[in-house]
């Protein structure tokens, strides 16, 4: 699938992090910008972080233009991805539905749906009748918070997550990118205000440009270059049930109950909810949130009560203080930041790599990511889709 090369002493670009975003960045650096003297440095095995431990949902149903345009770019890349890198990632546009349960929630969703439509993204409102038809197992009779309708993005859906990392890895590798696994970055060397090299468990590697794509651990890596960020690391759990025959044909999000669910191509119900709610780097979750998430499921889909949970695990999220990401320069020359993905990381993978590659290659952001700066907090120009402010554990 990909080579296992020895590190060269110097690269044009060093990307720290062999997750989906790092690999995608390498791929687009090579493909879009012709920069192939690139190393992707991974502490463990590629795709071992959040790209392999999420709930596989892709969507671009955001409210603020900075997010809407960016995630829509991602959707468009998803739509052409498999043919682009000749590897089936099972992109399945089965629709993503956000349920609403009150008039204020309906209005907030309308504002978002309209923002999507104005940005050229598909969005539609569903009546309860339409919802019943699309999702027969929703319980309309006994809900604590009666379901009034839903916001649907038909082009949203799911993607086979492992395949994404592997597909980008294969594509980057075939274009000459070195993927260096089991290579841990210990330090970032800054000389004269510019990043020049990384110290790794496999020796010092010099890079003309150094890019961080280590969401979940961004604070740790940025600290090596002396940067402190508005990011906290939090655990988000994901759950999968035993495989069952098709029961649910779309992605359903029950925001009021902190629950979202889809069914995988292997038949498992894949679901999740809120963060566990405290700073954590442990790739495992705890019982209270598990119970809460599944209560959310039983609140609207009591037919799944006898379906069994097969496995659950946790991913470490880079929670930014407004819920939106960073793809930007850092204030240190030749050092670039990609992180703060909160829950949005998986669906963003293609556009993140695409925009980050552009930012690195041109030493300037693309229009699509120009709002995703660190300075926005100092400036008071946060992009806060939830409106909960600087409490990352509830973002």
């Amino acid at each position, binding site marked *: 699938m990909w080579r296992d090369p020895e590190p060269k002493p110097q690269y044009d670009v060093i990307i720290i992090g062999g997750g989906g975003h790092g690999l995608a960045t390498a791929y687009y650096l090579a493909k879009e910008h012709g920069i192939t003297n690139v190393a992707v440095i991974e502490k463990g095995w590629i795709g071992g972080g959040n790209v392999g431990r999420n709930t596989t949902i892709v969507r671009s149903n955001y409210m603020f233009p900075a997010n809407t345009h960016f995630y829509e770019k991602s959707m468009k890349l998803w739509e052409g991805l498999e043919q682009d890198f000749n590897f089936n990632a099972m992109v399945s546009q089965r629709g993503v539905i956000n349920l609403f349960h009150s008039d204020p929630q309906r209005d907030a969703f309308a504002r978002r749906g309209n923002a999507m439509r104005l940005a050229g993204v598909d969005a539609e409102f569903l009546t309860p009748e339409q919802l019943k038809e699309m999702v027969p197992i929703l319980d309309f009779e006994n809900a604590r918070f009666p379901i009034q309708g839903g916001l649907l993005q038909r082009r949203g859906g799911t993607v086979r997550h492992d395949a994404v990392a592997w597909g980008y890895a294969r594509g980057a590798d075939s274009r000459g990118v070195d993927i260096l696994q089991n290579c841990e970055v210990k330090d970032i060397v800054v000389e004269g205000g510019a990043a020049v090299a990384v110290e790794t468990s496999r020796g010092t590697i010099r890079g003309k440009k150094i890019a961080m794509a280590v969401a979940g651990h961004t604070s740790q890596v940025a600290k090596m270059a002396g940067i402190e960020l508005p990011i906290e690391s939090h655990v988000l759990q994901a759950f999968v049930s035993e495989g069952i025959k098709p029961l649910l044909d779309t992605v359903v999000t029950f925001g009021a109950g902190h629950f979202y669910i889809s069914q995988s191509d292997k038949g498992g119900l894949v679901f999740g909810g809120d963060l566990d709610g405290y700073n954590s780097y442990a790739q495992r979750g705890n019982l209270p949130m598990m119970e809460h998430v599944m209560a959310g499921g*039983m609140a609207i889909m009591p037919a799944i009560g006898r379906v069994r949970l097969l496995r659950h695990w946790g991913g470490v999220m880079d929670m930014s203080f407004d819920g939106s990401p960073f793809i930007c320069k850092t204030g240190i020359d030749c050092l670039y930041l990609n992180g703060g993905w909160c829950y949005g990381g998986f669906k963003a993978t293609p556009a993140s790599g695409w925009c980050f590659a552009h930012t690195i290659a041109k030493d300037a952001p693309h229009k699509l990511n120009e709002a995703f700066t660190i300075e926005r907090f100092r400036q008071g120009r946060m992009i806060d889709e939830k409106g909960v402010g600087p409490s990352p554990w509830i973002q």
Partner: protein
Amino acid sequence: MGKNRLNFGGTKLDRSKPVNFTFDGKTYSGFAGDTLASALLANGVVLMGRSFKYHRPRGCLTAGSEEPNAIVEMRSGPRREPNTRATVAELYDGLDAQSQNRWPSLAVDLQSVNQLLSPWLTAGFYYKTFMWPAKFWEPVYEKFIRRSAGLGHAAVEADPDTYEHAHAHCDVLVVGAGPAGLSAALAAAATGARVLIVEEQAHVGGDLSSTLDQIDGKPADQWAAEAWVKLKALDNVTTMTRTTVFGYYDGNVLAALERVNDHLAEPPNGQPRQRMWNIRAKEVALTCGSHERALTFDNNDRPGVMLAGAVREFVEGYGAAPGKRVVIVTNNDEAYRTAMVLKEAGVEVPLIADARTTPNAAAEAARAAGIPVEMGVLPKKAVGRLQVKAIELQRVDGAFHKKVECDCVAMSSGYSPDVHLVSQTGVAPIWREDILGFVPDTPKRQERSAGAGKGIFDLAGCLHDGHMAGIDAARNAGFEPAKSLKASRADPTSAVPPLAIWRCPGQGKAFVDFQNDVTARDIHLAAQEGYVSVEHAKRYTTLGMATDQGKTSNVTGIGLLATARGEPISDVGTTRFRPPYSPVAIGAFAGHERGREFQPVRQTAMHSCGEKLGAVFVEAGLWLRPQYYPKPGEGVMEAIYRESKQVRETAGICDVSTLGKIEIFGPDSGEFLNRLYINGWKMLAPGKARYGLMLREDGYVFDDGTTSRLDDDHYFMTTTTANAARVLAHMEHAAQVLWPELDVHFCSATEQWCGVAVAGPNARKVLADAFDEALDISDEALPFMGVRTFSWCGTTARIFRISFSGELAFEVNVPWSFGEAMWNAIWEAGQKHGLIAYGTEALSVLRIEKGHVAGNELDGRTTAADMGLGRMMSTKKPFIGQVMAGREGMIAEDRATLVGLKITESEGRLRGGAHLVVDKDDASAETSLGWVTSVCDSPAVGCWIGLAYLQGGLSQHEGKTLYAVNPIYDEAPAVEVCSAHFFDPEGERLNG
């Protein structure tokens, strides 16, 4: 009685209680104590399921919860449950099970044609195939994959059974009541520690039900039963059976699922189906035993090919013979025990084929009992399709040896200690070549493993090790054992180590992960393609990802991967075990919290008053509030219109009890409020109320409300309904963390005081009549923003002259228990003054007409200035959020600020969430100038009006026409921008 039921064995059966059940529509008979699998075997049924990918016919491989093959659909209708392991499903009268993943029938499954496609269905087939042409993926390939997904069918109706959570605390938790577990529990209990022992099965003793060994001179199963009785009788011991500890979480909290009533057709009235235990254990002894592994040879998945230990268990524990002629293939001593049990039960054992060549005592004993043993012989291939008919054997060098007819093969490739729970604590298992198994490394939590779970496989060793673990656990929990405490004893045995054989040579399909149809070749292929990391190989092949989490297959898979990489197993490592240990019903996690019980309902004191008047209620957080009071035949819109109109004409009463209320005491209360609110409080006179606005520390608006000064050092704050809890927490932070030096004290009084708003030109008359001599509410006695406390019906009441509607209005608070009385008093008094009840909708109409902000405008991203309240921000004192509110982006000219909108078309309506643009034919994300927050059909203005945030605000757009574009509704009405104070901008009506 079934044709394969033995007169021998059956320690778990109650032969006096025959039980009828059906499988695939055919009725059979078994005994109480049977599992579905044992009862089927006793009836000669070996074909129990189909595999996931190739739809290969399968029987049961094991006799326990690690079963990968024999999974069935149980029960029907709303109780239908897919993927139940037949090996753990206890038989009850009327049990109804169906085989899964087959069509049209289990014996004739047309999808087994997948086997012919198998060259394309190897590891990673999803990723490489179904690609071209592009347009075929979703409509054609994906549909095919999805239809073949999954195994059984879930119910489509709500689960009718209930679940509950329960909480346990103990000094010592013992997980598993096998020999080591019982020994551990007995030892720990003797120290006086509080012991909880949990066993997954209905019976205790584990392996002891199928052994011929003795403990303390008694048959082993009798010793186990007596130990259990002894434990149950102790006050400091709690015992649980049918309970699986499935997760080891932080804080030494373990989760367990008790299957309270799964062994019955339906739970008895009032009882849950299952109970989820959260167990807080000071110390844990993990005595979870081990899992036998399958040998990997061609067609090793044929029905009738089973693990040797399972065969023994079926015979001894259930009195069910898996076959009449059983060949044993093994690489270790343990399988010989199966041969001896079979022999004693009168089942023919034509051969034991032992892969090892070193002589061993077990073989000698078998030969002495008349069982033929051949050393250095491996299985090559199982013959037969729906049931094994014979086994072909080979020499270790791969040369064909011979074929032996049989209807059952008992195989064993050694035992893997069950390290599932301990590895959940982050302890990495370490490889031991001498026992061919992973054992736990040094504990990281308050736990220790014992017995087979840490690689001790002989009975004497398990008893001793369990005993030591029990003592160690108790000691660490603070309990000392008596010196005289002794472990139970069994005769020591010595075993010859097993021989590592990860693949018996062959060219056909040799299964490693039976349920997911992962073959030895798949693992080799994954390694060849570069998925050499054990985690990559797992994901690529799906090894260990089926419902059994690879309990019987992981180690073999790792062995094969190591072989492919040419490295020792210790270098390959293992994948991480994830909770739960075995699959757990989603309903059990939810417990009581489902459907309407998802969250508790909070009701106001006047709930029944609303009910009597026919109110339609709406959820407001956990509260239920009257939304509107429809008259017979009246629609929603008409009712809201009527209510809001009537309030301005006569008077209305509205239940406002849900507002957050906080009593604040202390000499520093005024200073405290000064720091919380953007406006000043120290100068507020006792007996007066003031509107306040507070910010978050990041400078955005947090909450608003009216706060009154009742006395020099006593304030009474109200918050919005939505933010009541958050405001209290915010204040606690301020008082405890930020300014502990302030002498200020407060508590929630939300449910001490219930309240009504009485608004409208007749409000004063209504209240004067309702409270008559108790109260003077003349303008002089109670001016606007005045507050008074008065005595009514022997209790204390508070009245506030405040108005959210712009009308002459009062809010009256009385103790919660007087709420109904107050409502009734006002209601009766109000009848002659045209008093009506109005709900949250009319409340909203009235406040929109006045341009008052509420939840829709307080969305966590707005500044005080955005709301037109910038001038409230004091410059004379510091307050929370003051500094950050000054950031350039938060005071920028281009921010959207609050305006009013009036529809200018006679048709159509306004809706919240519409975007505002100058040119409706040029509407885009870039041309959107703002959005509509709240709307209503206003009786006072005579058209649809709304509040909106608009870039440039009133100063740039007043009087201009914009379009409220709403693509998701396909509407774009024209609107005129105006002041948000639509009605009575001078506020004259406040005086009545």
